């Protein structure tokens, strides 16, 4: 069974600074995908970034980047130049292939951005 662990229930960052959110996962599959989702108070789940396990290069989307350490089963999210609009709950999730396409979510990290 897959597990996703986010060890930081809450984080805070000053506007314009950089923050890193941690995520570890466990899977026995060799082919899997990892995701970071953002959920602002509007409750809309927004895909921030995705990483395919077979790709060695870390995914990047504008101010968002990941540090994917496959051997350590670690998938952290770095937010650079933090903005007030980045304040949200962030969920790490994994999909480990198979025909059911189910996502496994971590418990989430609540990010506060201080002006």
């Amino acid at each position: 069974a897959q597990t996703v662990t986010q060890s930081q229930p809450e984080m805070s960052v000053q506007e314009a600074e950089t923050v890193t959110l941690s995520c570890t996962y466990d899977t026995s599959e060799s082919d899997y995908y990892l995701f970071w989702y953002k959920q602002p108070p509007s409750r809309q789940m927004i895909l921030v970034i995705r990483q395919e396990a077979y790709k060695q290069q870390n995914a990047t989307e504008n101010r968002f980047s990941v540090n994917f350490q496959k051997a350590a089963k670690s998938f952290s999210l770095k937010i650079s130049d933090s903005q007030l609009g980045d304040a949200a709950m962030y969920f790490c999730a994994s999909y480990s292939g198979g025909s059911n396409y189910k996502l496994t979510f971590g418990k989430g990290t609540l990010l506060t951005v201080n002006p």
Partner: protein
Amino acid sequence: SAVISQKPSRDICQRGTSLTIQCQVDSQVTMMFWYRQQPGQSLTLIATANQGSEATYESGFVIDKFPISRPNLTFSTLTVSNMSPEDSSIYLCSASPSYGYTFGSGTRLTVV
């Protein structure tokens, strides 16, 4: 990626009644998923809905309580039946697997 319209966005319901939540996808998708998110918690998968077959429910969720329909490749409904205050949650639908699992905007359900 697909865009999902979810309705209603919120509702307040009396205990013992039922509420049906609808999700419409702007493109055909193979599978849709229904999640429950209790206050301050992560997402818990209720069931997976394939077109033309019965939904597959996760442990702890049963069809009598959460019947699901999937009449075509762009639409699905979830009914929360015989509601109790414990059913007060956010319910989200999702479609997969495009670039990265698109979600509806969620339904905030309060049972009084």
